[in-house]
């Protein structure tokens, strides 16, 4: 199938700003699904609120546009009732780490078979550039005009600590590896988290002297490195990308099915 078979063309050109990374992530999701050959009708995309959540309107799968930060809660309910479906949960950093932080850690703890795709642009884009839990120390935001003093979360360590069984990081520059990682994350039986560094040129970029989408993608190209590379030893400030963990662990829906079986037999 062609990319156009996976989108709702009537909503294009989409509403994201020129150069917004979210469109690149959406394109990578489509290509990963195309490669895996999953039927459109077997996929549900559940999103929360924010620029990232618009993905739900543009993709031609079953889609649920839910509440800010609550996408994983809705997705958990849906997955438990229809475990045969493939669920993708695109979120923004505000969505996933701030208001939705609790849902994120508990979905990770339960190891429920969902794929969370966290488009991290280090800012709240839709509401006008407020700082988020992933805004860096010293970065500028509408709510941090003199520089942010809150240390940011390391999303990868956060979800590793909470028990996610598949955790990866990639960027919009590294789009072929993003497609590859998404394929693995979607196939993985358990809770998968893929953090994608995704540019918001309009708010984060403009405020932090990374004026254009191209500048920001050059930053991802030059300031990230594969996990465990020699460059990382020399330059500890580089951000690692790749798959941090991929482990088979008891999956929540399967455990729940066993429990029902057990209760029925008594």
């Amino acid at each position, binding site marked *: 199938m*062609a*990319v*156009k078979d996976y*989108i709702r063309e009537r909503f*294009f*050109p*989409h509403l*994201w*700003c*020129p*150069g*917004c*990374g*979210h*469109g*690149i992530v*959406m*394109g*990578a999701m489509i*290509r990963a699904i195309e490669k895996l050959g999953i039927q459109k009708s077997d996929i549900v995309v559940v999103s929360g609120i924010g620029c990232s959540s618009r993905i739900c309107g543009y993709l031609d799968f079953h889609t649920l546009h839910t509440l800010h930060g609550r996408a994983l809660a809705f997705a958990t309910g849906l997955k438990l009732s229809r475990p045969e479906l493939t669920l993708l949960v695109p979120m923004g950093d505000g969505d996933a780490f701030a208001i939705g932080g609790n849902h994120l850690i508990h979905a990770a703890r339960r190891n429920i078979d969902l794929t969370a795709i966290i488009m991290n642009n280090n800012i709240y884009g839709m509401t006008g550039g407020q700082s988020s839990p992933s805004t860096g120390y010293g970065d500028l935001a509408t709510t941090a005009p003199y520089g942010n003093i809150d240390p940011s979360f390391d999303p990868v360590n956060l979800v590793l600590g909470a028990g996610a069984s598949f955790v990866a990081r990639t960027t*919009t*520059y590294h*789009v*072929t590896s993003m*497609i590859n990682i998404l394929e693995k994350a979607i196939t993985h039986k358990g809770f998968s988290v893929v953090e994608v560094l995704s540019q918001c*040129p309009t708010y984060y970029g403009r405020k932090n002297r990374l004026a*254009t*989408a*191209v500048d920001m*993608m*050059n930053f991802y190209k030059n300031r990230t490195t594969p996990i465990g590379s020699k460059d990382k030893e020399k330059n500890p400030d580089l951000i690692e990308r790749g798959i941090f963990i991929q482990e088979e662990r008891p999956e929540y829906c399967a455990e729940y099915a066993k429990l029902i079986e057990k209760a029925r037999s008594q």
Partner: protein
Amino acid sequence: MAKKKKGKPVINREWCKGCGICVEFCPEDALALDEMEKSNLAYPDKCNSCGMCELRCPDLAIELR
């Protein structure tokens, strides 16, 4: 790397927002923004059909055909 696709980029001018991502990251410098700030295959002979412009366009405005 991207799987080799046959064909050359065809740009949907209605959807292109002129962000310049495809132009900047084309390994062969085959693309350019025109006077309307739309991407355009300015040097077709240079294009090696790698498909990276198609994958990186945030607006799904490029298709290799």
